[in-house]
């Protein structure tokens, strides 16, 4: 009787083992599908954006005009032109100014938080910076439009306050918390053993920071700046609302400009689906996708190189 029970039990165990095995397999397949979802989606984005734009690139579009002419007039009745130079310069000038504003402050803040602040202050500052990074871009655009606009007009006595200066500052304030966070991570990733070794040799705190920690974190800091550039380059709402909308090559920071992203956001609603104009906007999308892809790829390679070098050393444990 006891044997039959044992047989029964083992038989049951076998069945459930099989069932469990099948569930395990099914779960594994589903999880794998989820795992590759990011690849599927990034390829999907590329395919969907290019398939609308590509026909235009090889058909109607004059690449020389696209890259060298500042005349973007896709809705012109008899002679639409598709020169994106002014838009590219617009994006570049706003992003450039934003980086001039944001890079020194975010690197400085990252160094302070990571190397000088006491633990309590460090936690507080990190939380503050994280909260600042969460402010939605449309709110930043609104701030540029309503608060910074009159300020710029009054302070510099210019007729329009929606210009490169305004959107550059807004974009800088926006990108700074993100760059601070990434840069701080990079500094924190420098093993404490480096600091201790330098201090044991009699280095002062400043020598430790400037001669040991910063050089060791160089790649991470570079990646932080690159990701900030990528963020500024692709930002839409803030630039749309604060940069003024004027399609020409800016000659000073007080000129209004139109960015690539803002052009898509403004015109897509009016462009008839399938028209040259519509596909020209998707072409701008291809350009944006490719440039941000390159920036992110570079940042990743830069980071990986530093990570690889550090991982090769023992003692770079997580506690650092």
């Amino acid at each position, binding site marked *: 009787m006891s044997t039959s029970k044992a047989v029964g039990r083992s038989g049951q165990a076998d069945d459930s083992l099989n069932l*469990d*095995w099948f*569930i*395990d397999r099914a*779960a*594994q397949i589903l*999880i794998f599908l989820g*795992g590759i*979802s*990011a690849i599927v*989606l*990034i390829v*999907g*984005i590329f395919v*969907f*954006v290019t*398939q*609308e734009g590509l026909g235009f690139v090889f058909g109607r579009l004059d690449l020389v005009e696209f890259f060298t002419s500042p005349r973007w007039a896709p809705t012109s009745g008899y002679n639409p032109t598709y020169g994106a130079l002014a838009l590219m310069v617009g994006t570049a000038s706003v992003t450039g100014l934003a980086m001039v504003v944001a890079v020194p*402050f975010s690197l*400085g*803040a990252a*160094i*302070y*938080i990571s190397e*000088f602040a006491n633990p309590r202050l460090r936690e507080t*500052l990190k939380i*503050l*910076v*994280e*909260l*600042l990074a*969460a*402010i*939605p*871009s*449309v*709110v930043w655009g609104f*701030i540029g*439009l309503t608060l910074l606009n009159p300020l710029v007009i009054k302070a510099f006595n210019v007729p329009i306050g929606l210009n490169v200066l305004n959107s550059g500052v807004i974009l800088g304030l926006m990108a*700074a918390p993100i760059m601070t966070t990434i840069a701080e991570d990079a500094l924190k990733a420098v093993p404490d053993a480096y600091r201790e070794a330098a201090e044991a040799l009699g280095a*002062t*705190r*400043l020598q430790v920071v400037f001669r040991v920690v910063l050089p060791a974190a160089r790649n991470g800091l570079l990646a932080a700046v690159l990701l900030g550039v*990528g963020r500024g*380059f*692709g930002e*839409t*709402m803030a630039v749309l*609302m604060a940069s003024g909308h004027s399609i020409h090559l800016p000659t000073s920071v007080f000129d209004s400009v139109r960015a690539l*992203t803002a052009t898509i*956001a403004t015109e*897509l609603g009016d462009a008839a689906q399938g028209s040259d104009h519509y596909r020209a906007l*998707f072409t701008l*999308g291809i350009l*944006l*996708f490719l440039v*941000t*892809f390159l920036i*992110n790829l570079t*940042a990743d390679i830069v980071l990986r190189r530093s990570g690889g070098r550090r991982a090769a050393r023992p003692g770079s444990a997580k506690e650092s």
Partner: protein
Amino acid sequence: MFEATALDAKNQRDERLVKGAFLVMTLLLILPVMLILGVLIWRGAPILSIDFLFTEPTQGMTAGGIFPALIGTVWLVVVALVASVPIGVAAALYLSEYAKDNWLTRLINLAIINLAGVPSIVHALFGVGAFVLFFRFGTSILAASLTLAVMTLPVVIVSTRESLQAVPHAFREACWSMGATRWQTIRRVVLPNSISGILTGIILEVSRTAGETAPIMFTGATMFLPFLPQSVLDQTMAMSLHLYFISTQVPDVPDALPYGVALVLIGMVLAMNALSIAFRIYLRGKKKW
């Protein structure tokens, strides 16, 4: 016994000086934003009331409340979560529990980084091309939410992967040596021990999703609707886009109104974020291992 030499004194002075300079830079990063938030609160607070939250916009969007936009944002966020959380958690499970260190894993990581880096307006183009036109969802909550889901997927993946990896490997080994399958280990050991961390990431995603504007502009959110959405195939108003429209497109909006909308939007987003951070700190304190 030890006396501070002139060099020591100089070093200390230099250190204080540099430390002070970096502190000033940190404050210059934070204080202007605090000031701006202060002005937003000062100008927007007078208009806030229960009525403002729970009535519809009236008189060509120049008066009244924000109820349809608020409800619309809730719709968008919930549908986006339904789509992105299962996929994101699965992706994180794959990366944390199954993936070997090979080219596919590197490719997945690269894809995640790029997915997070693609400009929001390119996500909008993708949403129009894929969800609105190709899958024929039309401009609808479904199309807008899926676009948002794609965009915020990296947030879920990265935060979930972190909390999965925080579960000690010994837990898994103990479970495996009891004869459990990989899935049983995940379901009974890994997930229960990381669920709070995963939730923290999801709250963070909610905050991100609620504030996004560009991706929903052409995929499902609209300027004004006199009724609340009834299904995922309806269009909807949304908080973020409402702020954009009343501050740029609608004429004769009284000054206080957009400040009120901006304040509610920031309040929502920052509250969710703060909740997520508080949760994270609480969990760190409670950690058993």
